[in-house]
């Protein structure tokens, strides 16, 4: 594919690519923080779509500026699946499920944002410890910090919110963070693995979607507070 910068005979200041990647990676982190700051499910879906869009732009930038051609495929798949298909299906599910009363999160919003700040710091420390080995990444180290932070924040969202749909979005967002790490530090995984991961995430999403319906049918709610049948 004659798409990347050197094919077109263009020379860029190498910093342009890196800054673009840093910027959109930062948008991903902002989305993760906003997940924690809001209770509205429709907004969660939109935030997820925006986070995936930022991820797709990062992937395109890596593919274009670093000439890692096989990442184009990952970027296009991200765009189709995570920016378009999954959010649309999720909106449908939201429409079909009975409207829910709001549930209080296990930890209130200011406190969870405070914890989130701590997790971002922890992600940075973890990155420093990887960097201390003297390895050079394909890209700037900020992106690795962000990807670990996105994973941890998604986990925090899943733990503190007792809504089934929020947990699904948390899982998907966690996977976004993981994917960012994949393209940043290793310039993508072997093709077969990357396709397999995409396939798994898609199937996982659809299975979770089916279970959302089954939970709402069996329990008359999709708030997980009521899922307390199981003890020891």
């Amino acid at each position, binding site marked *: 594919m004659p798409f990347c910068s050197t094919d077109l005979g263009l020379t860029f200041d190498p910093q342009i690519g890196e800054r673009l990647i840093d910027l959109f990676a930062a948008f991903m982190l902002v989305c993760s923080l906003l997940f924690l700051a809001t209770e509205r499910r429709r907004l969660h879906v939109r935030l997820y779509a925006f986070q995936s869009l930022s991820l797709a732009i990062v992937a395109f930038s890596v593919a274009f500026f670093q000439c890692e051609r096989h990442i184009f495929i990952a970027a296009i798949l991200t765009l189709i699946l995570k920016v378009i298909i999954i959010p649309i299906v999720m909106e449908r599910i939201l429409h079909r499920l009975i409207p829910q009363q709001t549930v209080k999160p296990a930890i209130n919003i200011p406190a969870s944002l405070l914890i989130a700040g701590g997790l971002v710091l922890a992600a940075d420390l973890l990155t420093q410890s990887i960097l201390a080995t003297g390895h050079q990444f394909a890209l700037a180290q900020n992106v690795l910090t962000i990807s670990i932070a996105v994973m941890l924040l998604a986990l925090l969202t899943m733990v503190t919110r007792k809504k089934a749909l929020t947990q699904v979005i948390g*899982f998907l967002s966690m996977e976004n963070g993981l994917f960012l790490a994949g393209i940043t530090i*290793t310039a993508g995984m072997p093709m077969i693995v990357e396709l397999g*991961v995409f396939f798994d995430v898609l199937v996982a999403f659809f299975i979770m979607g089916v*279970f959302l319906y089954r939970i709402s049918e069996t329990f008359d709610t999709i708030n997980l507070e009521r899922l307390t049948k199981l003890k*020891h």
Partner: protein
Amino acid sequence: MGIESIIHFIQDDAILLMLLTPLLAGIFCAWIGTRREMGAISVTGSMITLLFGLLLVDKVLANGSASALNNFLYADGLSAYLVLIISVIGLLANIYSVSYIHEEYAQGTIDAGRLRLYHFLLNLFLFTMLSAVVANNLGVLWVMVEGTTLASAFLVGLYDREESVEAAWKYLILGSVGITFALFGTILVYFSAQSAFQNGAGSLNWTDLSNPAIAHLLDPSILKLAFIFLLVGYGTKAGLAPMHTWLPDAHSHAPTPISALLSGVLINAAMYGILRYHHLLLASPVTAGFSANLLLIFGLLSIGIATPFILVQKDYKRLFAYSSIKHMGLIAVGIGLGTPLSQFGSLLHVLNHALSKALAFMGAGNILLKYHTREIFRVVGAAKIMPFAAIFFFLGTLAISGVPPFGTFLSEFLILAAGFSAGRYWISGFVLLFLAIAFAGFIIHASRMVFGSAPEGVVPEEAPAMRLWPMALLVFLVLLLGLYIPNPLHTLLQQAIAAVNVP
């Protein structure tokens, strides 16, 4: 063409054929099988799978390894050993489930659509587990382990009860999130591999990474970090504490043949992933102790957390689920101790545990179908109601609690003996104490269920043959392993240990 050359011809592609069979069986069940045929297709499929599995084992015994599709699939001693376990338990669970799931259909617990889904997913589940252990690429291993969660999520939530849906949801979410950590670990390993290879291209192929020349070059501190993520990720699926919380729910609310597969086989497939990376860390002296110690810590924690729950358990399927956590802990401890004897014991215990846990769950299934309750206190006098099924159940309970002369006793004894002779008194003493406590718990629970006078209102009737013969065979196998280890199995175990250890 003589029969010899035909066998050779098949043997060359044994891995591939072994993977295709359950896939085809699943597709046949989904599309064309009638209600009666589906059972026959599944059983025939898993028989053929076992046959190819045995051919693969034979080839690995002869050559040390086998591969197919340009090294995309690769099996060494450890893979072949797990293939053997998966295909044997897969066949027996399939035979058992024909009778079991059709009785549930007759009782009206599930409808025809669910029956079809069950057979389709059961075969798909076997396919994903088999592919996980013969994948050469560690990334594909991850894809397949996540595949096992996806294939079995509907199986866990097959019934439309609140508990089943909740258990399946927990299983799906915790399994997927846990495994996400494992993918991060895999990415880190790939990252360190990129700088280890001359051309900088990197590889996730086991055949490349396990090459000592490469394994030495992998960066120690990145490997350590990766191993933490991998242990948490695959450990979630293997049921190691404290990531085990989904396991008792999923294993107890799934249909019983699926419980047998989840507890007997799936957790071993996840442990396989951990063992692969453990090998990579053993290659370098800097990281060798690190992974072993982590395995010890998580193993001891699992034993310590699961045992009290065994004592106070009120639900007999949950009882066996907690016992699985304990046994996985024991296997992790045996690997972590790191002496050849303890590793031999550990790997032997993988097989013994798989056989006896499948046996115990099959026994629990017979009781469940008869008494319609999972509560230990409401099941009494099973021996009067269905003598053979009850005796096999009791023997299964004895086997999982490690009573001589069952195979589990031998392997537990080997691990403990290795621990004491290596001077790890505290660890071995702790394990011994908790094994003894769990043993007492099992005997009290099981004898209450099996012996005593039969209750009113339960019709005395022996379980059908399809649900007794697999159990009889399992009793025979687990007894045999306690008394004598056949030579080919011994060789296979040695090869498997070689795959875990670094010479």
